């Protein structure tokens, strides 16, 4: 197990449809992502707890691209991962944010 933390700045304040949203399940090759509104001085904070050790650089790249797609401010993203591939991670991130902003789970 490994815990990775990332922080992004320069995002835009958002107007979420719900205070928090969850996507995915903590199962093999999958992950759960919890997105919550939280005053973080404009930051978007990401914490990843992952069963697959040693993939920090890939998480960084995946999250960089995610933040470029969704520059969120004052949002906390918490992830429990069981070795999901980057494709699945990106998909779940988009699903979680869509539910968070659009209110459709």
């Amino acid at each position: 197990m490994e815990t990775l933390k990332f922080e992004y700045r320069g995002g835009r304040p958002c107007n979420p449809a719900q205070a928090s949203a969850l996507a995915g399940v903590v199962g093999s090759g999958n992950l759960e992502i919890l997105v919550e509104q939280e005053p973080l001085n404009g930051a978007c904070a990401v914490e990843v707890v992952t069963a697959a050790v040693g993939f920090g650089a890939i998480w960084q790249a995946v999250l960089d691209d995610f933040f470029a797609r969704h520059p969120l401010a004052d949002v906390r993203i918490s992830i429990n991962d069981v070795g999901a591939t980057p494709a699945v991670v990106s998909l779940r991130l988009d699903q979680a944010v869509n539910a968070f902003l659009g209110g459709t789970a």
Partner: protein
Amino acid sequence: MTQSYYEASARERLAAVLDPSSFQEILPPSARVMSPHLRQLDTPAAFDDGIIVGEGRLDGQPVLAAAQEGGFMGGAVGEVHGAKLVGLLERALDTRPTAVLLLVESGGVRLHEANAGLIAVSEVMRAVLAVRGAGIPVIVLDGGQFGCFGGMGIVARLCDTVIISEEGRLGLSGPEVIETTCGVEEFDSRDRALVWRTVGGKHRTLLGEAGELVADATAAFRAAAIRALALTPDLSLEALEREHAALGQRIERFGECHDAVDIWRALGVEDPERLPLLEAADFNTVTAGKRA
């Protein structure tokens, strides 16, 4: 969202079975009430510990509901998971809803916290009986990918009814456990037709272990759950004596049967071999009046 109950996640099942937008979760993921034991064993934990509990409405009636997420550790019961279920059942004693719905999907006790899980399951058992004793029906929905086994298999049969799909399974020891312990000759867990014939929804319905067989669709489970709201729990001595007589008869009539097909034939089902191929509606027609 998928129409299939089998494919849906626990959250999707709750949303589809209960009245639209009526479900309100207690201790949601953002509360982060998680298992501390998994982390200790270097195993990923989930924000909801694999069970969602809360209040909602079914056909306009207030209900409490819990849903186990099979995708997380096969829905296995750990300390927190079990405590959420116990707490929900006890809440029913205070709030007196029309019914409690258990959307089960569980391999039983979570081995990473086996003792806590086992004790929790027995607390769930006591709590289910207390809720029924208070006159509130407890309704089980069983149609997930991991079935309902171990202690949860006992819990399910403590409730007022089990609504099951053909894909749903209900038993005590999983086929893999039996194969590992007793050998492949005893139970070939890879013979999935045999597995489903033995512990699957159709056999459970014919045996009287499940109350109703429904198609694998969230809408079908919802409709059956609404019908089940009318049940009145009966934990009287007379009721248990009736059940005792039925279970005794089951051993007498089917104790020597080698395969489910033998039991179905003994029940008077014509062409029992074709039962596994029938859709739920046809199955219900063909087997009407022939259930044990």
